[in-house]
């Protein structure tokens, strides 16, 4: 009896699976076009899965081994089962192979089940608690039905009773594993995940690459939507990406806004996008909700606006404005989903179409438009901080080795200390540098992250035009946000430069022995990795090696390097200022205090401002440039500072 029923069951499940796949694909195809190569993507997929994805998964060794066993066992078992039981190819060797595969899958499934016994809060419950049982059921039933094929048991053992039991087991197993894969069950992640890897919108991320710059909106095309209003405004491969989420909650655990009790949970956000894609409400979401936002009140559909400013849509605007764009979620996501892209896409709609940038947002954007800086200061005062420093101007020199990009920190008294320190370092090393002075404008970072792509592009184009007048080898800046934007986001608008963060450049100067440095005096030091330097640009080493050169042994925080926790200052978060239970900089300051360090070294004006905003007593905050400038030993050369720099300047024609 099994011999007749099994194939029927299996082919029915497979047929339904194909039907589901077709339905799912048509859901994705509601999205807008995206320039990815379908064939090349598919060809690259196995490597992306085995190498790139596993590099992320391997950070959690337990889960990575479990997944290899379970998934590997399942894929093998499923293929063999189709051959053996579906097509009835009862070969003994195949039988043994199938037995082996089910045993492997069974072992993996046991570990999945174990993790589920006391699951961390980040994991989803509901259907996800059912999954290990289904995995066990699939592997056990196929193991037993295969025993006769391998010749270990006679075919008729156990009679009707066992046969029925087995049939039920197989039915449950394949319902979850085949049918559920394309009809929205937990196994959907395998199907969508594989295709998501193949057709990822940032193919550069694979093979050790990095791709973190936001993608430019085409403002010239009059009918291209300005950002994402409804789910179908995403590109089709973004929609596919949302579907790939395994609800592992790694993003949730890393998200500073979630930890601060702001109404954002990146995992829930991705699931909300899935709800929007297929239509429905969020009552059945089985994970942690947005802090302070009850489940079941929000719903959406593919053609409905995601944010409803008058009532309740799928997602509240505050959720989108809570994000600091720190990319911690993207960094942790084993499915390589791009949360930040999605969030900024939706912000773009709110700002460009609705004019609904919250709190100080509108004012900051107006200032950027009218004065080229977010504070609304007179642009003529951009160089006031250096009135006594005799800074060489590009407009006079026309060319220099290094263009020092000052950034908007020029208007901030605290950051001016950092800038002056860095100038001191540059002069001590005799670097041939110059600044743009009043020709410099805000890089556009904040405008872009607040969703104002138009203002970003306007600022960027004008900066690119200023830069195009002069010859320089490299741009060096103390601001990781300007650094990131100049390096990774101006390219699409025609500005390609070699850009360095000042820590990288100082590291180079030290390696070239152009600085005479003493030792840091003044207690123990920890270092905070700025998101836009670390996760966005992969620079973790240079700041540490600079600190080492002045005799500092960094007392590392638990969350440092690629796991560094955001200071709360990115993505315009201090401007939109969505309330939570605690403040992100306070949480980060606690991380800092835990190391017992007396001073935290930073490399970003935003981080400096956020940390200095934490009430005392707390560790002191100093920029790496300040620490290096303090450790400078006056070179034995007879000349004093000014003449050292001057002759260099004069030699240039």
């Amino acid at each position, binding site marked *: 009896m099994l011999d007749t029923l099994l194939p029927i069951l299996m082919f029915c499940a497979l047929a339904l699976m194909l039907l589901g796949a077709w339905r799912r694909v048509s859901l994705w195809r509601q999205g807008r076009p995206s320039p990815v190569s379908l064939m090349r993507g598919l060809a690259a997929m196995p490597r992306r899965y085995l190498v790139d994805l596993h590099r992320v998964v391997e950070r959690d060794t337990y889960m990575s081994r479990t997944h290899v066993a379970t998934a590997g066992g399942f894929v093998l078992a499923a293929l063999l089962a189709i051959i053996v039981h579906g097509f009835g190819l009862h070969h003994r060797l195949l039988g043994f192979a199938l037995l082996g595969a089910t045993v492997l899958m069974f072992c993996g499934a046991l570990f999945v089940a174990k993790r589920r016994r006391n699951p961390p809060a980040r994991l989803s419950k509901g259907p996800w608690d059912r999954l290990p049982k289904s995995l066990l059921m699939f592997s056990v039933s196929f193991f037993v039905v295969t025993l006769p094929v391998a010749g270990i048991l006679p075919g008729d053992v156990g009679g009707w009773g066992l046969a029925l039991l087995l049939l039920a087991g197989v039915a449950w197993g394949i319902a979850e594993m085949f049918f559920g894969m394309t009809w929205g069950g937990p196994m959907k992640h395998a199907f969508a995940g594989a295709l998501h890897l193949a057709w990822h919108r940032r193919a550069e991320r694979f093979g050790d690459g990095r791709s973190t710059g936001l993608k430019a909106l085409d403002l010239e095309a*009059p009918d291209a939507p300005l950002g994402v209003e409804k789910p179908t405004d995403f590109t089709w491969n973004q929609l596919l990406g949302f579907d790939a989420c395994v609800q592992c909650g790694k993003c949730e655990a890393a998200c500073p806004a979630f930890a601060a009790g702001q109404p954002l949970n990146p995992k829930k956000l991705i699931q909300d996008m899935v709800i929007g894609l297929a239509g429905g409400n969020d009552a059945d979401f089985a994970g942690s909700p947005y802090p302070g936002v009850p489940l079941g009140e929000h719903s959406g559909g593919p053609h409905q606006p995601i944010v409803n400013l008058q009532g309740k849509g799928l997602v509240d605007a505050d959720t989108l404005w809570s994000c600091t764009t720190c990319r911690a979620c993207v960094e942790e996501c084993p499915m390589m989903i791009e949360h930040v892209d999605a969030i900024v896409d939706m912000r773009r709609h709110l700002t460009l179409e609705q004019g*609904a940038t919250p709190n100080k947002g*509108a004012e900051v954007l107006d200032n950027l438009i009218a004065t080229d800086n977010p504070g609304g200061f007179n642009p003529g005062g951009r160089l006031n901080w250096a009135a006594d420093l005799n800074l060489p101007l590009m407009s006079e020199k026309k060319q220099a080795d290094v263009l020092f990009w000052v950034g908007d920190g020029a208007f901030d008294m605290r950051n001016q200390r950092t800038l002056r320190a860095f100038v001191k370092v540059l002069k001590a090393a005799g670097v041939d540098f110059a600044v743009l002075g009043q020709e410099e404008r805000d890089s556009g970072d904040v405008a872009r992250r607040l969703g104002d792509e138009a203002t970003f592009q306007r600022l960027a184009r004008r900066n690119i035009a200023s830069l195009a007048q002069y010859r320089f080898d490299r741009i060096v800046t103390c601001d990781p946000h300007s650094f990131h934007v100049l390096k990774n986001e101006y390219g699409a608008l025609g500005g390609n430069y070699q850009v360095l963060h000042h820590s990288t450049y100082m590291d180079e100067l030290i390696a070239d022995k152009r600085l005479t440095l003493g030792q840091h005096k003044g207690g123990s030091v920890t270092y905070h990795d700025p998101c836009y330097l670390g996760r966005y640009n992969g620079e973790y080493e240079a700041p540490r090696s600079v600190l080492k050169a002045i005799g500092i042994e960094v007392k590392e925080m638990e969350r440092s390097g690629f796991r560094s926790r955001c200071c709360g200052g990115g993505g315009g978060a201090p401007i939109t200022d969505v309330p939570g239970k605690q403040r992100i900089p306070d949480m980060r300051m606690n991380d800092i205090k835990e190391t017992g360090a007396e001073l935290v070294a930073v490399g970003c004006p935003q981080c400096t401002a956020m940390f200095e905003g934490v009430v005392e007593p707390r560790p002191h905050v100093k920029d790496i440039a300040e620490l290096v400038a303090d450790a400078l030993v006056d070179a034995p050369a007879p000349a004093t500072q000014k003449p050292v720099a001057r002759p260099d300047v004069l030699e240039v024609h």
Partner: protein
Amino acid sequence: MPHNLLNVITLVSVGAHPVTGRARRAEQDARAVELGLRLAGKELQLLHAGDPQVEALRAYLGMGLAEMTVLQQPPRADVVPALGDYLRDAGAQLVLTGSQAEVGEGSGMLPYLLAEQLDWPLVVGLAEVESVTEGVAQVLQALPRGQRRRLQVRLPFVASVDNAAPEARQSAFGPARRGQLRPQDVAVVEDMLLEEARLQPARPRPKRLKVIKAKTGAERMKAATAKASAGGQVLTDMTPEQGAEAIVTLLRDEKVLR
């Protein structure tokens, strides 16, 4: 509560940012648009007299309006006649303006001249329109130090707003780009004043120094918040000549006139 049947027209001008002088939506005009939007919603009409090519005008459209009528006028024309004719023909019931332009003459006379030409009432410092029933609007007028005066005004009327009116909503790029500037050819009237007068940068007005002889914090607080001046005298039953005489005497005393 938008009064959808009310025919509201907001007059807008090109402003200048106080720090950089870049063209922008004028602060007070934008507030007038905001008030208009709250009253008439998307039915609000925008009217500008000047050059339809000026991009800064789009910032008003970015507040969520589909179009703006632009009466084509050269830079130094007297726009009052053209505006007045248009408003009368358009059947406007409520005309909103800022109090003073940010560029050009900036005399703040336009609302007055317009009201005079149309022979309509003028409310200055409009803060809120509370209701409109049977052709009569109940409005709040802003007075110094946060005070409000409730007025009843018969439609149609002109109202100017200052910084007491609600803050203007954000201007969004999408609607600003899509919106239409609809030019209209109208008669041009030379500005007699500009014909003969010369423009020069304004000097800041002299401010009377308040000498505060307070000893305690409380007294200082009182002095700072008290009404500008309680002194002086009220002159009644005088001929115009006597009044003028009194004013000139005062100005002499204050050394404004020498």
